[in-house]
Every structure is written in structure tokens, then in C-alpha cells.
């Protein structure tokens, strides 16, 4: 499965272009899942159907889904609370686990929730579709969400290093004294006996997989911009952010071109190229809405993704 991310400033047309790309790919015969992570959903509006958190069949090989960040956050909290209630199981009998619900309002919960939803799709849908087309949320949230697997890996690696040092010390003490049992508790001194380091290895494996998919050959990030300076500034920041995260930015769409804005379009393109924008820039003309469905664009968008 190939994964295509459509990123860009709000209002540049990433929803329209991602919907049109998904449609065109499905028309070529590929099985496609189009998912919107943008809280201001309009994937459903573009296709003229009502979408929910669960995927919906649009044609025989095109499925649509709108991730509801509220629902995703609640799901994420539920998973974490179930982890906590496993430890503090007795709280359930006092009906006190409801107090954990306040976690829903923790700072940064949206990124975790969005990433968990993305992980779930990557894990469960990988064999069913040829393409996963993702319409991303606003730039800030997208970058934070995409950065999370790497941040997690950095932390997990640091914790593994520290844990190994602890186990080494325990091993030394065990060798010197014959056994190491502070306050009568026998402590693990080998990696294979220590549940903490085993759990850390599991976490590393899980997030390496997600990170490998995001940075891998089969992932493409497309940046959508308009011929105007606001869009240029945000795109420059986005390009830098994606580069720092080592994400494969493969194509750029210069969207909403007209005869009037041609000059500024070329200027914006030149500036973005010097900021590290991919050489492949597709120029998409402004589509006059004459009653056609938003996803039917004449311009071929799929060439860069085949």
C-alpha cells in the first residue's frame, strides 16, 4: 500500500486535490481509501455524502472516511484508562475510574489521538488497499503528529540506554555479593528477565514500524500551495518541518492558477524551489464550479504517484 499525504496551509485546496487524486486513482482501477484528518472536514461535502469515523464505500474500489478527532481522543483515553485500571482495578468497584476521563482534556491529546488513528489504519488496512490518501489537519497539528513516532523513539532509546546501565550495575552487584535483594525483593539483572526493558523493546519495535512507513519509499508527501505570499510563507515552514523529520516530500501542487496570477505563481515557485521544494511541481488551474462534483478535475493528478 502506498500512502499519500496532502499537506499545506488551510484553504489552498488540499481536500479537493486529495479527493480528486483518490477518485482518479480509483478510476484507474486501484483500490483506494481516502481519509480526512482535518477537523474542518469537507471530504464528505466534496463527494456529496455524509461520512463518519467509520469508513464508507463510495464506489466498488473507493472508500471514504473522516477521522473525528473527538472520537479518536476518547478512544485514545479509553485505551490508556484501561491500562491504568488494569493496575488500579479496584477503582472500578468504587466507580472512581470515571475521574480518569478528565485525561481527555490533557494538553497534546489531539496529536496522540490522530497518530493512534493513523497507526490503526496503517496496521489494519495495509493489505486491503493499493493507496491510502490522507488529507491532513492544519500544518501545526500535522507536523506535531508526524513528529510523534520519532519523539517517542528518541525517548524510548534514551530509557533503554539508562535501563541497560541499571541492569549492568545490578549484574555487578549480583556478581560481587552472590545475590541482590534490596529489602527482600529479588531484582532482575538480565535483559531477558526484566519486564521493563522488554516493554521498552516492544514500544521501540512498534514505533519503528510506524516511523519506517512514514519515512519509507512507499510514502509520499505532497505539498499544496497557492500563488500568494501567505501560502508561500507557510509552505516554506512546512518544507523545513518535513525535512527536519526526514519525510519524503515528493511533489508540489501549485493550485488555483489563472492567467492573472501567473506571474506571482512563478515567483512563489522559484522561492519554494530555493527553500527545498521538490523539483516536481504540478500546476493545477483554478476550477470554475459549474455544477460539477468537487472531486472531478480534468487535470491528471496521479502521474506523480504511480
Amino acid at each position, binding site marked *: 500500500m502506498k500512502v499519500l499525504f496532502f499537506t499545506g496551509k488551510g484553504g489552498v485546496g488540499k481536500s479537493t486535490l486529495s479527493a480528486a487524486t483518490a477518485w482518479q486513482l480509483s478510476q484507474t482501477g486501484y483500490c483506494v481509501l481516502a481519509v480526512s484528518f482535518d477537523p474542518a472536514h469537507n471530504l464528505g461535502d466534496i463527494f456529496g455524502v455524509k461520512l463518519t469515523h467509520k469508513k464508507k464505500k463510495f464506489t466498488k474500489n473507493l472508500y471514504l472516511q473522516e477521522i473525528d478527532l473527538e472520537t479518536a481522543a476518547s478512544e485514545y483515553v479509553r485505551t*490508556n484508562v484501561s*491500562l*491504568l485500571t*488494569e*493496575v488500579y482495578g479496584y477503582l472500578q468497584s468504587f466507580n472512581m475510574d470515571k475521574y480518569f476521563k478528565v485525561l481527555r482534556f*490533557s494538553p497534546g491529546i489531539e496529536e*496522540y489521538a490522530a497518530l493512534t488513528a493513523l497507526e490503526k489504519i496503517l496496521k489494519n488496512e495495509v493489505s486491503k488497499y493499493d493507496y491510502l490518501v490522507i488529507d491532513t489537519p492544519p500544518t501545526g497539528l500535522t507536523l506535531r503528529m508526524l513528529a*510523534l513516532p520519532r*519523539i*517517542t523513539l528518541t*525517548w*524510548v532509546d*534514551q*530509557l533503554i540506554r*539508562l*535501563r541497560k*546501565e*541499571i541492569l549492568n*550495575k*545490578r549484574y*555487578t*552487584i549480583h556478581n*560481587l*555479593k552472590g545475590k*541482590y535483594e*534490596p*529489602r527482600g*525483593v529479588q*531484582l532482575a539483572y538480565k535483559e531477558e528477565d526484566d*519486564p*521493563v526493558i522488554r*516493554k*521498552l523493546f516492544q*514500544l521501540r519495535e512498534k514505533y519503528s514500524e510506524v516511523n519506517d512507513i512514514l519515512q519509507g519509499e512507499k510514502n509520499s508527501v505532497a505539498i499544496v500551495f497557492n500563488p500568494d505570499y501567505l501560502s508561500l510563507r507557510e509552505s516554506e515552514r512546512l518544507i523545513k518541518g518535513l525535512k527536519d523529520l526526514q519525510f519524503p516530500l515528493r511533489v508540489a501542487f501549485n493550485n488555483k492558477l489563472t492567467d492573472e496570477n501567473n506571474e506571482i505563481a512563478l515567483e512563489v515557485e522559484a522561492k519554494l524551489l530555493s527553500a527545498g521544494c521538490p523539483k516536481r511541481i504540478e500546476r493545477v488551474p483554478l476550477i470554475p464550479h459549474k455544477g460539477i462534483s468537487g472531486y472531478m478535475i480534468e487535470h491528471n493528478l496521479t502521474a506523480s504517484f504511480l
Partner: protein
Amino acid sequence: MKRHGFVNWIKHILSTIDTSHREQAAGLTEFEARELENIFVLLLMGSFTGIPAPPSFIAAELLPHLQHEIKVLKFRAENASDSLAEMAGLLGID
């Protein structure tokens, strides 16, 4: 018979010296191990102490296995002002 008793006595002395040296060497390593365990749990539960924390699910996943480390954290918090004295004791400074 007497000679045998003497050898045993020497063996006993040597083993006591060995144990004492091992205890002394292990004491310092035990102190280091405890400090590392304390740092480990402090890092992991940073939000508990007000320092930047790792993604919260890491702490939630490891929580069931951290009984010992949390005890160490509590012990260190109670004896924080006394750790210099503990170091001095370990290094044999009067």
C-alpha cells in the same frame, strides 16, 4: 587435626576479608544503581515532578512493573538532604 583447624581458621579469615571487600565494593555500585533507578523513574514520570515528560503512554505502559523504582523514588525524596552523608559514609570519610 590441629593443622586442619588452623587451615579452616585461615580460610575463615580470608573469606571474611573477601566478603568485607565485596560488600564495600558493592555498596558504591548499589548507591549508583539506586541513583540510576531514581533518575529512570523521575524521567519517566516527569509530569509528576513538573519536568518535561516523555509521551505519557510510555509511563502508563511501564507503570505495572515499576514498584521497586517508585519505592526508590520515595526513599530518595525522603532522604534527599542526607545523600551527601550517605556518600561520605560509602567513601569512608568521617
